[in-house]
């Protein structure tokens, strides 16, 4: 396990988590410890074992392709940080 401080910055960027240098240092040390704990897993021989993605061996149900939800835009947008004319406002994306 060789997680570098640069990996920490890279992962933070992928996860869209702003991070100061000091936070990254702390995170680095803690993540190294946690991956030390996880490392135990690597020694296990899992040849021929099928991955278990889910607790029950069932396939997911599909539902009919019909409209089930009524329009509740105003209700749902009441929780938004910034809206205007029924639209979510974000900083300008296209220059």
């Amino acid at each position, binding site marked *: 396990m060789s997680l570098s401080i640069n990996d920490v910055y890279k992962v933070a960027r992928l996860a869209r988590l702003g991070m100061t240098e000091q936070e990254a240092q702390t995170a680095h040390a*803690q993540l190294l410890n946690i991956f030390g704990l*996880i490392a135990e897993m690597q020694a*296990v021989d899992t040849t021929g*074992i099928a991955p*278990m993605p889910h607790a029950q061996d069932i396939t997911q149900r599909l539902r009919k392709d019909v409209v089930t939800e009524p329009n509740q835009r105003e209700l749902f947008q009441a929780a938004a940080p910034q809206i205007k004319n029924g639209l979510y406002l974000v900083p300008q994306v296209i220059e």
Partner: protein
Amino acid sequence: MLNSSLQQLGAALRSKKISSVELTQLYLSRIAALNSKLNAYITVNEEMSLAQARAADVQLAQSPTNALTGIPIAQKDIFCAMGWRTTCGSKMLSDFIAPYDAHVIEQFNRVGAVNLGKTNMDEFAMGSSNETSYFGTVKNPWNRNAVPGGSSGGSAAAVSARLCAAATGTDTGGSIRQPAALCGISGLKPTYGVVSRYGMIAFASSLDQAGPMARSAEDLALLLNVMAGFDERDSTSLQRETEDFARDLNKPLNGLRIGLPEEFFAAGLSADVAQAIESSIAEYKKLGASVVDISLPNSRLSIPVYYVLAPAEASSNLSRYDGVRYGYRAPEYTNLADMYEKSRAQGFGDEVKRRIMIGTYVLSHGYYDAYYLQAQKIRRLIAQDFVEAFKQCDVIMGPTTPTTAFNLGEKNDDPVQMYLSDIYTIAVNLAGLPGMSIPAGLDGNGLPVGLQIIGNYFDEARMLNVAHQYQQVTDWHTRTPQHIEV
């Protein structure tokens, strides 16, 4: 009244000895008096609770009613309840008013139970001590310098201190059973898929399961009867015949085979806990049960596997918090990416960020096979251990936790130590099995010990029977914290 069972409370309500409004007011006044000491509730809304109680009183005047009609239930703040602030213990959702009801909330509303308030929890259910809540730590009613456990610590403390008749919790790696054990109450995590996850704020979707937290197995059965049920809005909700989880409570335990996994009694288990568990096993033998030595050889891997899979699922689930549609948005930013990064950096606490980082890393290019896929393969090995074990026994028993409640702050600086406190509970979530914890003694400092009972898939009725019979011949579940007036 405060120590009455749910059945007794229901009878008192139906015979008009007390009204739902009076019962709700009784609990609200206790919350007003004691919550500042325990911090068990994040949100209380007297007006909304009393409106439900008044409606329940109308319903009670007519028949038929449900066992829980008019009974005040505390809801973990992970369940969306329409019109209620629903925070999930996070700054990210500190102002979020839920615009809809979770299925669990709908189920309680349907029978006329009263929502007494939203209980404190670890942020996004990530924690084992309730110390990661943005709204402050919950104190253990048995010793206010100790943690209540987590992540459903507020619900556990509220039940233990009689600040509600019963409560709900969720359990992803032990979040119902561990706080139930540390606060001296009973808690049940059902088989994955029995209770709908709709409207339950997602942490690790393949492991999350809601369940009841209460003072006895009998109460748990009544609560599960209301909570369980098929819901088409959760694609993992299981379509099963409706069952009465209380149907087997009074069956004798003659011939019951209890499996004791050697791994649950190995190094790391405190002497006090070991002794209490051995005494309860002895009690079960008196009730006619026999004991079988079993092994769950891969259970030692459950913590590493969990800390790959749960963060991986969490990093995906929590990507929705972007400061655009709902939730916290940073006050200042330069562009869209900066807005995302600042909103998430400021809105999430340290433990949540840590898990998002782990999850993002294990899912990232080049590491997926070594971590995520390997963890899923070992998950199957862990589940197969249980399949083998249940060929030899009907239920599995052991300690819920390696120690009783640890002190506030004790494990805060070392995430790995904190993670290890869930060593006996996590394998159950990985396998998707039902598990419960019931009070089974006190340690030398007077802190509660929890006995864990693990059942085969869909064997909740039997587990409740096993727990109930123990509670007929012991009184650990009736003990109350000394420092809290009841």
